[in-house]
């Protein structure tokens, strides 16, 4: 598959904010002094009165959003996922999840593809943390097109949502016209031997792997499982029953991510052979995005290897 780079998902987020601002007058956007990096600045420039920059303070950022949401506003709050999720977690827990408030959280710079800035800037545990909160929807889009669509869906949906965006330009994996719904995976390729469930940048890697597996006579399904919670259990079950082999790929720590969610579900409903491509309980480091994905085991050759392993080939 040709590696055609599109916009970064964070850019798609910033642009989508302009669209939802026009559809939903209640939308207010907030940032913690990273708007130029999260791209909420695109909204700030067009709608300065509906934009609040709180400064470098994530806990208060979330708390203020809670107050706004309780008065009927729809706050979209963004910062780096690494800081927003960990420093705002107590506030997400009591203020947003427990309070059942309509706060939308967009963590940028997810995963290790952040690159040169290094491990302190990389969120590799955000999905584990946010899926642990009752009622939170958790989404990891794969490319610009799906990010735009899922931000629009997020604005329509009533309730707390966490959506992760990334720093680097994202390879295009979806065709225009594809429908994206919260909680519904998108099948990009249908196969009979193994099912590869992926989200974020891993969707492209999974497609690359599937193409090469086909050359070796292995037929693989590839699903963009953008929503980690609620999980598209119907699609997972259908795939698991057909292929009997499920490989989950994510740019996240192996504990508590998409892989854990899928495994928990399949262990109950349809135990089958499973494999996991994820960050193996370690922090990453500085380097180029591609180099890091390779070193930490997230590129397509690693997916091919993992797929063959569960297939016993």
């Amino acid at each position: 598959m040709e590696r055609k780079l599109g916009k970064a998902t964070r850019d798609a987020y910033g642009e989508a904010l302009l669209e939802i601002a026009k559809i939903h007058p209640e939308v207010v956007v907030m940032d913690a002094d990273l708007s130029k990096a999260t791209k909420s600045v695109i909204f700030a420039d067009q709608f300065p009165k509906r934009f609040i920059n709180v400064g470098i303070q994530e806990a208060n950022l979330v708390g203020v959003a809670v107050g706004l949401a309780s008065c009927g506003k729809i706050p979209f709050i963004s910062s780096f996922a690494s800081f927003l999720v960990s420093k705002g977690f107590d506030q997400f827990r009591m203020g947003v999840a427990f309070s059942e408030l309509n706060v939308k959280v967009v963590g940028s710079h997810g995963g290790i593809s952040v690159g040169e800035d290094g491990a302190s800037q990389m969120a590799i545990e955000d999905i584990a943390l946010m899926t642990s909160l009752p009622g939170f929807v958790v989404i990891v889009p794969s490319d610009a097109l799906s990010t735009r669509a899922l931000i629009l869906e997020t604005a329509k949906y009533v309730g707390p949502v966490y959506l992760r965006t990334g720093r680097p330009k994202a390879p295009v994996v979806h065709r225009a016209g594809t429908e994206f719904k919260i909680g519904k995976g998108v099948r990009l390729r249908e196969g009979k031997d193994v099912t590869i469930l992926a989200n974020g940048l891993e969707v492209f890697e999974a497609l690359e792997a599937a193409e090469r597996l086909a050359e070796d006579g292995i037929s693989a399904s590839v699903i963009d499982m953008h929503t980690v919670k609620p999980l598209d259990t119907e699609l997972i079950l259908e795939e698991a029953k057909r292929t009997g082999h499920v490989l989950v790929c994510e740019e996240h720590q192996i504990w508590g991510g998409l892989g854990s969610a899928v495994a928990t579900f399949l262990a109950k409903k349809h135990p089958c052979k499973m494999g996991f491509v994820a960050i193996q309980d370690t922090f990453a480091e500085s380097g180029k995005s591609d180099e890091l994905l390779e070193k930490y085991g997230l590129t397509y050759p690693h997916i091919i290897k993992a797929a063959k392993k569960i297939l016993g080939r």
Partner: protein
Amino acid sequence: MEKLSVEQLKAKAKLVRRHIVEMTGAAASGHPGGSLSCTEMLVALYFNLMEHNPQDPQWPDRDRLILSKGHASPALYSALAEAGYFDPKTLTDFRKLGSPLQGHPDRRKLPGVEASTGSLGQGLSMGIGMALARRLDNKNYYTYVITSDGEMNEGQTWEAAAMAAHHKVDHLIAFLDYNKFQLDDSTKNICDMEPVVEKWKAFRWHTFEIDGHDIKEVLHAVEKAKKVKGEPVMIIAHTVKGKGVSFMEHNNAFHGVAPTKDQVQQALKELA
């Protein structure tokens, strides 16, 4: 709602204190000390200062109150019940399984509770959000927050303090229930935040200092606070933990421990 006179408010405060003692006694748990210290503020707010409607708790133009020190829930519930949000007879269901009167306030369960609290330090931020929503919507309501001396230990308090002043957030009036104790010991011995008045002034909050048990001072401070434009307001209310019950006053043993049956009877005699 009809606004009560100072004398009527004093009588209401006594009634609220009786509820606090009875409900923590019935639950055999809860936080009587810090509930008794913020009683006058809540009574002055719900029965004189605030525009609100117990028959329509979601009225969009209502004034809002956030009890940031959520462990003082007995005081909040008593005020809400007396104001007509629910039947005061149910107050003794406090902390019982299935009751909307949760240990700490839960906005999903009880009408009139504006914010779920209990993790300290979050109320000011929520209040800022409500005050900013007011500004965006061109409404005139006020947002009140009751915070505590212990909460000043929390970093988020100071994030909120700096941000509110920078954004010139007004129609936001906070009370600091300064009863000089936190769970483990006196504030002086755990994490002394003095000079408190100077801190809030330095953070560019319009600051008043009052006797938090003097109803007239509470009313007067809020009337002045409402005239402040372009600044958030902090009313530092000096209070006594356990106020109104002789054996609870200044006695930190009643921070998070309920009175026994005998102590309830003795307290009710004092509050007759």
